[in-house]
């Protein structure tokens, strides 16, 4: 399992890449592996301002569906436009082509509550 050190993580198995006041968000290698073959990423919250821990979308695998939670509060600026045609990118490249949303952060202090790669690795026992 791959958990890049430069990213932050949540207990809901999302990763966060912080660049200035914008966070790019996706699901971790562990999450995609647990879900299995992903067939549809449903995110219809573009333009909405959501608080931390609220649902911003869902990811459908063949076997199951899972909600996506905001790791940080902010406005959903952009949804990955390629996932509609290639949802399997979440399986094959979870930290790259499989990114899900970019969020303009409204409270930078929340970043401190995220987990490091080491913490997250310990959480999933990988």
């Amino acid at each position, binding site marked *: 399992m791959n958990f890049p050190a430069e990213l932050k993580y949540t207990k809901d198995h999302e990763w966060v890449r912080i660049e200035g006041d914008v966070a790019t968000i996706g699901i971790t290698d562990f999450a995609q*592996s647990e879900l*299995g*073959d992903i*067939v*549809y990423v*449903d995110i219809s919250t573009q333009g909405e301002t959501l608080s931390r821990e609220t649902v911003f979308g*869902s990811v*459908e695998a*063949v*076997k*199951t*569906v899972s909600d996506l939670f905001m790791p940080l509060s902010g406005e959903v600026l952009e949804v990955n436009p390629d996932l509609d045609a290639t949802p399997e990118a979440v399986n094959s490249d979870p930290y790259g082509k499989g990114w899900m949303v970019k969020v303009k952060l409204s409270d930078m202090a929340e970043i401190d509550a995220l987990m490091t790669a080491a913490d997250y690795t310990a959480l999933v026992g990988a």
Partner: protein
Amino acid sequence: MTTEVKETALTQKHISLGAKMAPFAGYNMPIQYEGLTIEHHNVRNAVGMFDVSHMGEFILKGQHALDLIQRTTSNDASKLTAGKVQYSCLPNATGGIVDDLLVYCIDEQTYMLVVNAGNIQKDWEWLMQNNTQGVEMHNISDKTSLLAVQGPKAINTLQKLTDLPLADMPYYTFMKGVFCGIPNVLISNTGYTGAGGFEVYFENQYALTFWDAIMQAGAAFNIKPAGLGCRDTLRLEMGFCLYGNDIDDTTSPIEAGLGWITKFTKPFTNSDALKAQKEAGVNRKLVGFEMIDKGIARHGYVINDLNGNAIGYVTSGTQAPTVGKAIGMGYVAKAFTEPGMEIFIQVRDKNLKASITKLPFVK
């Protein structure tokens, strides 16, 4: 009741192959190995092997064995001759189904019933209650392994390991003979995938040997192990019912489209009521549907009409790899059962359009 998770004779094999394991019907079972979609396509197009040893097997023996089966199952087992298999169900007394099962006729006084793993205890007790004439009953589930070798190349794979003439075995028949040098192995032309293939029943002690021999025999045909994940997508594409999802203690065989295995040629549990239901017509029916809007229906989701009135519920749903669409099955009110009719699946806060589709999804 114990919550201990049981193992099949092959559980450790699956773990060593890196399978994703999960408890299913009380057994630690492989859900997928390489990936559900890959395994699904491999079964449809080549050959895959499923360990389905969690399934239950009962032997019923004696001069009243057939009578017990006739009184408890919906299909007409008197049509069976030695070497034939029949799909059937055990109706309960209140309009529902105890379980669905396969009935194997070994000879005119010996039958094997193959039942769902999650219902082994329930079915056993149900049959015992009905066994008023001293039929000899053996539950051989714990010592019996079952490998389902499915797909168009299953026959080429298995024929390398036996002299039994597999090509001469019609669908829903079986033979017993030597397989991998071991006598008395039961091979049936059955399965739950619609991809063709065979199921092999034998004693647990041969499980590892048979698994490896079949993998080796199938290597030339690109055989892969297949998990319960793709077993579910394969069966759903065929419109096959899954007990606990599409049929249960509250759904009647007539509602479930199982009229074809409900024969009123003899009395059986609740047959008078089911016959009346068949003649009067049912208020709801199990149908197939394809999603038109993007989304996936899941077990338990509400089905609505155009105006948002509930007309039924989803029993199974998935993204179907061979069909290439999101499909499902569910019970809907009789007025909405015609192919082409529009229904709406309530997926969280949305009402997604779907269309009633004739079963099976894959021809």
